[in-house]
């Protein structure tokens, strides 16, 4: 099937009758995912969004429940978002990251109803990457510019139209509202060519990386590999697979709500005990934990690398600390294990 780029705004507007539609929109000189008020706000000619669209399923700030405790008793009201959503124009790396986040919010013991309810009610319409950026390295972490993992529909840009690949029943239902026509043979050829031409130049060799990380926890490489790191949260808040959060109460006396906010393992307070003891007292331990979590611990538990190669951390880091260089240094180092 194909849909012309001219028809996209009206398609999005018709979707807005039944769904909350999120699409990339321009903000200053970058792009970010927002709930659109008009189909023409969507910008599908973009590299990738500044901040990943994971915030649609896992918002930076989210009310978990409201409460009121008084003489009448304890009243708790959970606030779970059940609205139907469409994320339109999500890149394959970000769609894959959602599959990885599923492991976190649905682990071997507990289910997170906030994330999982949104997840169930969201349709993901992906946009393949004809021109991957120089900071992308998805192909090195089991992904690709036209990877269909977790997508309900994949759009392939062939100039003034998209070839529409319907991947799931949810996608099939969604596309009914669109003014689609059949794809001609030349359309299909153009799509194949776009896929073949998409070249991900950024590469990282992660063969044997986990084994190196299994053994180099006490290696002196960690003393200097993150020396320039400022310890801010720019990388973690830009990362589609990061999921750490904090839980706080916002209330007056006993009337208020419990809220969760994104948090970052790069902050010193993240692991500070009430006693004052901190198992990760300096940037070195925190950075090591971040790399280990993404490239070893997540693999240990979920058999998948918690990195999709989107390159946002590279772009947003104030000191250009490049994860690809970090991994190459680790791969190159002799993993001397000193315990």
């Amino acid at each position: 099937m194909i849909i012309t780029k001219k028809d996209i705004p009206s398609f999005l507007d018709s979707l807005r009758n039944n769904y909350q539609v999120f699409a990339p929109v321009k903000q200053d000189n970058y792009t970010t995912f927002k709930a659109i008020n008009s189909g023409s706000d969507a910008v599908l000619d973009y590299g990738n969004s500044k901040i990943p669209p994971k915030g649609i399923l896992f918002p930076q700030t989210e009310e978990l429940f409201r409460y009121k405790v008084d003489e009448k008793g304890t009243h708790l009201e959970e606030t779970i978002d059940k609205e139907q959503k469409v994320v339109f124009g999500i890149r394959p790396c970000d769609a894959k990251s959602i599959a990885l986040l599923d492991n976190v919010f649905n682990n071997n013991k507990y289910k997170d109803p906030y994330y999982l309810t949104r997840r169930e009610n969201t349709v993901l319409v992906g946009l393949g990457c004809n021109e991957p950026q120089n900071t992308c390295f998805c192909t090195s972490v089991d992904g690709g510019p036209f990877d269909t993992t977790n997508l309900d529909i994949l759009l392939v840009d062939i100039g003034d139209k998209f070839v529409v690949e319907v991947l799931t029943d949810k996608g099939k239902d969604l596309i009914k509202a669109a003014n689609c026509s059949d794809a001609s043979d030349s359309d299909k050829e153009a799509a194949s060519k776009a896929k073949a031409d998409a070249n991900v130049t950024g590469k990282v060799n992660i063969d044997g990386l986990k084994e190196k990380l299994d053994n180099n926890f006490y290696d002196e490489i960690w003393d200097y590999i993150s020396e320039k790191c400022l310890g801010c949260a720019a990388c973690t808040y830009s990362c589609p697979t990061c999921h750490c959060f904090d839980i706080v109460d916002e209330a007056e006396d006993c009337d208020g709500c419990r809220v969760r906010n994104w948090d970052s393992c790069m902050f010193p307070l993240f692991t500070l005990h009430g006693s004052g003891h901190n198992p990760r007292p300096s940037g070195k331990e925190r950075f090591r934990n971040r790399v280990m979590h993404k490239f070893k611990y997540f693999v240990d538990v979920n058999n998948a690398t918690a990195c999709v190669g989107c390159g946002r951390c590279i772009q947003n880091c104030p000191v250009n600390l490049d994860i690809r260089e970090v991994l190459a240094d680790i791969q190159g180092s002799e993993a001397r294990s000193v315990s």
Partner: protein
Amino acid sequence: MNNPYLPLPMKLVKNFTETEDKLIHTFTLEFLSEEDEKSFAYTPGQFAELCVFGKGEAPFGIASSPTEKGHLKFSVAKVGVVSTALHLMEEGTTVGVRGPLGNSFPIEQLKGKNIVVIGGGFAFTTLRALSTYILHPDNRGDFGDLTVIYGARNPGLLLYKEELAEWESRSDINLVTTIDRAVEGWNGRVGFIPAVTEEVAPSADNAYAIICGPPVMIKFTMPVLEKLGFKPEQTIMSLENRMKCGIGMCGRCNVGSQYVCKDGPVFTRAQLLELPNEY
């Protein structure tokens, strides 16, 4: 879908100043109904997130044993917002409890074995749960000898003095209490836990050692246990870490690939030796 973030309302019925320096209080919380109690079936070693409405939540080991019906006990040190609010709380106030969380002491594995419980200072909370559970008439027969070595800096800082007095008088438990330095009026042992453990020299034969305490105590007691013949698989520890969600999602409390809240807090020393030393 069950919502693991919602607390169960409970009533604070006792706010007891446990230690002489007033820094540790023990709270007794009552379930509001029998269904509530049934929904909170727990095993010694587990913890819960105690919620002070309006202030926040914090994780505490459950000090009571499931054999003590109708209520839960927590011992809390005053270190921050939630613990301070608890310390100042009037009896009769409604609090919330989320749990039971975490794994527990491996009760089934401990059956038929001799149990050596070693606790230091404030870390004795879940050890009280375990000891009380074992001593209960329904359970005592399932376990072998029970040795409890418990030490604090001074007598005033020992927790659960009432229970300790009761245990002294029993013949089915060998209770050894010790304080760091001699103090007038104290007729019991004097010495640090590692030295006292060496003196008591519990046998490692068909035994499990369960040890909880501050890092320095663990550091010096481990070699003693090793010398006594306790293998890493027979040595059980309960870890602490800063926690928020308690269900393995907020990413905070991990030691290596294991979340202390979900995969712990109880680990054998053998398991911990596989994990990075970051706790």
